[in-house]
């Protein structure tokens, strides 16, 4: 498991790890999806190109996850993989695979309103990158 769910008095968060920043950002996206629905049995039948930018690493992470949330919540897509590439220090693109979700196959466990800056943590410990993110549900 490359992430775990964290408790918050009113809402939900997660801690994710990665061998690189790219890896970490992908794992954070996977963690976010697992809060919203059960991500098992996702068929890899389509590809989407996602992009995000920020003014620093933290805002890039929040903006990236809000971009993923838009695809999951509004466009009703569920992803199973993310290949994140940094284009510039604070801009990324991502090839993501997955499928259009249906309420029958991937019922929503809880709707996430937004990804927040609350207690946001993004750091490198030894060779490993780690992030903590809280979302409003």
């Amino acid at each position: 498991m490359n992430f775990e769910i964290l408790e918050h008095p009113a809402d939900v968060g997660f801690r994710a790890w990665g061998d690189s920043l790219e890896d970490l950002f992908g794992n954070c996206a996977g963690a976010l999806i697992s809060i919203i629905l059960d991500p098992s049995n996702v068929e890899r039948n389509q590809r989407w190109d996602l992009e995000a930018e920020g003014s620093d690493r933290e805002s890039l992470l929040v903006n990236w996850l809000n971009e993923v949330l838009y695809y999951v919540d509004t466009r009703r897509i569920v992803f199973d993989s993310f290949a994140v590439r940094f284009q510039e220090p604070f801009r990324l693109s991502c090839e993501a695979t997955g499928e259009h979700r249906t309420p029958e196959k991937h019922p929503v466990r809880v709707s996430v309103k937004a990804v927040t800056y609350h207690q946001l943590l993004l750091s490198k410990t030894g060779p490993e990158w780690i992030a903590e993110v809280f979302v409003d549900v």
Partner: protein
Amino acid sequence: MSEIKLDALDDYRYRIARNETLGMRTDVLVFSSPVLIEHVKKDQSLGQAVNVATLPGIVGPSLAMPDIHQGYGFPIGGVAATDVEEGVVSPGGVGFDINCGVRLVRSTLTRADVKGRMKQLIDQVFRDVPCGTGTEGRVKLKHGDIDKVLENGARWMVEHGYGEAGDTERAEAGGAMKGALPGKVSDRAKERGAPQLGTLGSGNHFLEIQYVDRVHDASAAAAMKIEKDQVVILIHSGSRGLGHQVCTDYVALMNQVMPKYGIQLPDRQLACAPISSSEGQSYLGAMAAAANFAWANRQGILHFLRDAFGRVFGTDVRLELIYDVCHNIAKEETHVVGGRRRNVLVHRKGATRAFPAQHPELPPSYADIGQPVFVPGSMGTASWVLTGQPGAMAETFASVCHGAGRLMSRTAVRKGKNITEERRKLEDAGILVRSESRDGILEELPEAYKDVDEVIEVVHNAGLAKKVARLRPMGVIKG
């Protein structure tokens, strides 16, 4: 947060004196009780109220209501007024669910009328009022309609067959806030929210069929046309994905522009801009549009609720709106501060407006009693009807609490719980629960919340609001 020193002023008021080393521009005033304050100390909400006290242009104290708990940036149950000329507006001070609020509906039924038919009724309401987490809503908008909804709120719904004329008379701002700028709402926010119009949503949103358990203020209850054992319905929902996206968009924008305005804050989730700036004005226009979407949303839910009651009890049964209040909003209002009339922007994040009697914004039917305030408790306990009192005008920018306040995290309350057993426990207590998701029930169990009666004692005894009636649930629909 060891620097935070909390002084008890009396039985219901606590103060954190201004500490400039923390960047505070003002005091924090907390309304609480010896029991509740111990819960408050366990999370970060007091630290968040201190952070709010650092906002540029804050007027009066940073306020915390007795249901305060940890939120994002602002605490939930936080109130802050900023000077309209020199102060800032913070989207986080309104929250992601812009104009999340409650409306209370009275029926012409009594508890005895529904007793043997609650199962049929709750199942019918569950079928007719979409939760919206899995499926889309039933209000179909044509191209261009969304901007009209954003401008005209509940009025648009009534004009298009989703309600009755009286529905908009008894809602805060008539169900449509002035100053809405649909053009300042992103296409993405409209795309996210439009299919959800007329749906409850998940999380703590709900629809409860309740009965009046106790009447505390007979004349106010008479003005609201409610009496003991009458069946009422409480609807708690907000602006759905549209409001969430507006907040997301503007928190991102304000984080970008804060350096331009020389603003530095201890928490990025408080991101703000001067009210007078183009970004501040754009946000306020988008926020008002999202607020109108929320009023339209609650109006749609009422319409579908009427259908459901009609199917079960026939068309003679009437459902009438008592009032509709929002508890996540920023509103420009005039208040007397330090003996001087000031125009301020009151941020209410998990707090309800509570104007006292004779306030010019009240509808005529409530002019003599004060603004109705509805405070939902948890699904197994009770909810309250209150009226705004002069104390709120004097001390809290006319604001009171909005709920019981969470005590336990969603994961903690779920732990070791079995859905069948919990559902049976609630049924044994006379409460039928329906939800699209198992977690929707388990995460909102009564033990997750503080005692709503204790919260109400604080605002009643502190003179902010007055008890009118206590409501008990019989049927609950969770998103």
